């Protein structure tokens, strides 16, 4: 692919998430404005550890296929490359293959023959243990030093690529790049960087683009069109009915970031502390002064998830004011009773399993932080059981079932009945996962990634 320096590069990002769709006409409008590359992020850790832990996508195949079909048609029409990051939500090898399979089917149906690169980012714990022993893995706050057992406990580990593996794939001729786990900003920054755009504006534009319409006055519409040049970038909303304003663009650096001025990427740190935002007209904002400080050591972040146990959930509603008058006291007494029954029936102590009792409508969301202590009108009681295996979790839930249905409030000399929401009242949730890695590896930019160009495996 042509990687010659350009005067400007125009990036179209129609959405913050592959599979979320966009209004009809969004891509057509971008193509009218002129486009050099189309990019969409396909993943995030935001919905929790299940997707990485189980290596399954959050999005529906039909929704992702719909978006891919429209993106591929636009890429052909505009004769421009298409870059998808963090395929399959978590960016595991399964996720890349899942998206690649959808792309292959669509291209066959549409009679397209675009070269496709798959960039795999999944890591083996065995290889990483050697890297750990060599002293090349370091913790990020708030976690501590990594232990080999933690690596071994993960069901899946991915490394987060920067722009370099994507650039290599494009240089090698890929027209469609399906990346495993990639930094959000790198997905949109890669092509501009390859074409010689400066790092500061390219990375800043990449960060702004990553959530699509979030940087516009109406986040529910389609995404953004960004023109990057030697001095900065200009951004506008793809949807004709909304706009980018200084406020919406500047504020996007706040979104899901710890630090709103500095953001670490594998190759260095984006610094927008001195960036200026100017409203060019009703729709467009000009951004200049973004800088990128190249780090002495390139670092690759790891993400990993492991199974914490197996969960079964019980849920019931309480409306009786006699119980609600002291719902916390009722729930505490219920839990004590259930723990006694579990000990007596299954021989399990409190350390052998865990139960989280959540009082939805009272304080389930904020727990001890809840500032409002006034009596609730109605409470949903969730008992979430976590045990070493599914059968045990469900056995505990079944032992908890009759007390949850009939447990009396203080002073009640009869058995009330709560409102079970479903029959059966319990739901087996399967394995539960937790994120355990928040560490970086000292590594060359492309060393931890494997790229395959051409036919799907």
């Amino acid at each position: 692919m042509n990687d010659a320096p350009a005067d400007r590069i125009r990036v179209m990002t129609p959405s913050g998430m592959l599979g979320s769709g966009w209004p009809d006409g969004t891509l057509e409008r971008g193509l009218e404005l002129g486009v050099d590359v189309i990019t969409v992020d396909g993943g995030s850790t935001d919905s929790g550890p299940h997707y990485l832990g189980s290596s399954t996508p959050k999005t529906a195949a039909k929704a992702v296929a719909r978006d891919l079909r429209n993106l591929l048609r636009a890429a052909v029409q505009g004769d421009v490359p298409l870059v998808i990051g963090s395929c399959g939500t978590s960016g595991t090898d399964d996720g890349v293959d899942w998206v690649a399979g959808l792309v292959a089917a669509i291209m066959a149906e549409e009679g397209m023959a675009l070269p496709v690169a798959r960039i795999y980012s999944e890591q083996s714990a065995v290889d990483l243990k050697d890297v750990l022993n060599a002293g090349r893995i370091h913790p990020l706050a708030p976690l501590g030093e990594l232990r080999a057992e933690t690596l071994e406990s993960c069901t899946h580990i991915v490394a987060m690529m920067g722009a370099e593996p994507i650039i290599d794939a494009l240089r090698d001729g890929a027209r469609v790049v399906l990346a495993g786990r990639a930094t959000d900003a790198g997905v949109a920054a890669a092509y501009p960087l390859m074409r010689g755009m400066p790092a500061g504006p390219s990375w800043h534009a990449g960060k702004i683009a990553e959530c699509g319409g979030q940087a516009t006055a109406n986040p529910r519409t389609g995404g953004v069109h960004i023109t990057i040049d030697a001095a900065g970038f200009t951004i506008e909303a793809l949807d004709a009915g909304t706009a980018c304003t200084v406020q919406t663009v500047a504020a996007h650096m706040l979104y899901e970031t710890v630090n709103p001025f500095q953001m670490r990427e594998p190759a260095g740190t984006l610094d927008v502390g001195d960036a200026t935002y100017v409203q060019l007209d009703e729709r467009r904002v000009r951004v200049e002064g973004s800088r990128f400080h190249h780090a002495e050591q390139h670092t690759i972040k790891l993400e990993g998830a492991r199974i914490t146990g197996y969960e079964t959930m019980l849920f019931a509603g309480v409306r009786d004011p006699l119980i609600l008058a002291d719902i916390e006291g009722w729930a505490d007494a219920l839990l004590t009773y259930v723990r006694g029954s579990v000990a007596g029936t299954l021989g399990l102590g409190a350390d052998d399993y865990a139960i989280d009792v959540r009082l939805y409508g009272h304080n389930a969301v904020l727990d001890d932080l809840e500032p409002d202590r006034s009596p609730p009108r109605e409470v949903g009681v969730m008992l979430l059981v976590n045990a070493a295996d599914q059968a045990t979790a469900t056995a505990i839930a079944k032992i908890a079932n009759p007390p949850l249905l009939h447990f009396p409030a203080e002073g009640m000399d009869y058995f009330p009945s709560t409102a079970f929401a479903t029959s059966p009242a319990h739901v087996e949730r399967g394995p539960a996962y937790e994120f355990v890695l928040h560490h970086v590896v000292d590594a060359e930019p492309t060393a931890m990634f494997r790229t395959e160009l051409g036919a799907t495996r």
Partner: protein
Amino acid sequence: MSATTIADLALEVRSKNAGPFWVTMELFMRDEAGYAIVADESFVNEQVLADLYQVDADTIQLFRIPSLNVVKISFPRYVVQGSLRDRDMHAGQHHVPLALLRVPS
């Protein structure tokens, strides 16, 4: 009449994960007057936030951004995302104690 809260003076108060191990919150104030109130160190500071969220004051990062009338706060999640005790997967409701903080009269 009930006392004025931060939410009363804000366009939006929001919270969200910043990765699985951090939570971040923003106070988007309506105007410079509202910003001046929440940017006042004697009102919103690391210790007040530490007490509100039961975290260590040393772990709190506080950013005051007058150009946007925004105060932004980040600290490590006290419950790791997705673990058994996590009742707010996206940390999307954790702004509420801060939003309901009464401004000094």
